[in-house]
């Protein structure tokens, strides 16, 4: 558990430095859901990346297990793409998924996957040719899905925590302590950034943080052979991303979407009633209601907890008996 402590402390100590770094170099974003529209450094994700990297590196140092390095490399590639986006502005929405495919390469080239996923009711499949393609597709899908819920202070972290807790539970039940430690390390970094990222946020985690976490969850699901549980646990994020793409008619930059899904009234969030506004999870939460940002983000977390429980239930009922 020393690695977990290192990850948490590194993130906690680096977060204030990253805030200074973000302000110094103007890596900032506008907090649009506050009436006074403050400028917030979007460098908190770097503290998560460095904290998790420190923890996983220690794990790698103490027990060269063959899975820590591919997972860390995949996460770092995605985090780097996110950081480039934080620095240079939005990457072309059609190019970004292609770039995120690179995050799958460490897992594929280092063979850190088992192409025999267990499907409910069917059992273990043999997807030797198809599975690598699915691995490549999964990184852009999940990373963008996790990125899409980055709409409120703390929303990505609070919706990622249930997934990580579910993963830890599954690995504990299986007795897979290596993957349990990796999930624990990332969870520790997430919890450590919360004091800075929760409402009112002193730092955003930025694209670097959300893409890093997306890649971490994808890697954990693939290496840990909990694909089905992961898909179910990530339904809120996937639903959010997919419905936005459908409702705005394809992969387009949010900047060019005229109608907003929610609007701010007297400091409270309320859903747009316009038919052509994007369909998002937040819009559904705020339908016909005036919700504070703080409440909305906790509601998002409750939904993520619910899907994580469904994921765990699916894993226990349909997967675990057939995994070996």
């Amino acid at each position, binding site marked *: 558990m020393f690695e977990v402590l290192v990850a948490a402390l590194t993130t906690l100590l680096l977060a204030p430095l990253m805030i200074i770094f973000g302000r110094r170099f103007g890596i900032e974003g506008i907090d649009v859901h506050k009436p006074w529209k403050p400028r917030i450094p979007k460098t908190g994700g770097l503290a998560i990346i460095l904290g998790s990297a420190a923890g996983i590196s220690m794990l790698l140092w103490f027990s060269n297990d063959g899975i820590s390095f591919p997972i860390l490399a995949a996460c770092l590639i995605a985090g780097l793409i996110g950081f480039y986006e934080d620095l240079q502005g939005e990457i072309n929405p059609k190019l970004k998924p292609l770039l995120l495919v690179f995050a799958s390469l460490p897992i594929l080239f280092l063979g850190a996957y088992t192409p025999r996923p267990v499907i409910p009711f069917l059992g273990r*499949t043999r997807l*030797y040719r198809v599975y690598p393609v699915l691995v490549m597709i999964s990184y852009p899908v999940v990373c963008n899905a996790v990125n899409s819920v980055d709409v409120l202070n703390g929303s990505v972290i609070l919706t990622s925590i249930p997934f990580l807790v579910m993963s830890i539970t599954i690995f504990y039940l299986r007795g897979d302590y290596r993957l349990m430690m990796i999930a624990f390390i990332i969870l520790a970094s997430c919890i450590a950034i919360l004091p800075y990222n929760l409402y009112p946020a002193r730092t955003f985690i930025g694209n670097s943080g959300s893409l890093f976490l997306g890649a971490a969850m994808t890697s954990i699901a693939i290496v840990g052979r909990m694909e089905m549980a992961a898909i179910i646990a990530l339904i809120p994020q996937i639903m959010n991303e*997919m419905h936005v793409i459908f*409702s705005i008619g394809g992969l387009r930059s949010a900047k060019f979407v005229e109608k907003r899904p929610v609007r701010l009234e007297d400091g409270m969030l309320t859903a747009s*009633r316009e038919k052509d506004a994007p*369909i998002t999870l937040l819009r559904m*939460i705020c339908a*016909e209601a005036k919700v504070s940002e703080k409440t909305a983000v906790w*509601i998002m977390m409750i939904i993520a907890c619910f*899907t994580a429980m469904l994921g765990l239930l699916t894993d226990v009922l349909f997967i675990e008996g057939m995994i070996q």
Partner: protein
Amino acid sequence: MKVLRNLLLIMLLITIVWITLLFISYIISVTVFYTLEHLPSAILPSILRVVIGLIIAGAWIIGWYQLTKAWLYKILLSRKEET
């Protein structure tokens, strides 16, 4: 209270999606994945099997979107705006 109603309705929608996802994953496994991995000798039934699997999966994705759209506009945003 409206937020609580919205939360419960979203959870109900997700439960429907979860149940149908389990069903769809089974359908894809016995159609698309099975054919691609086993490469059976009879080409026409295999192609048909993949096409049917993909159509069902595509229909499910569109169905999911349409259900969410209906859920938002017909249930969650159904009442007139308060003045």
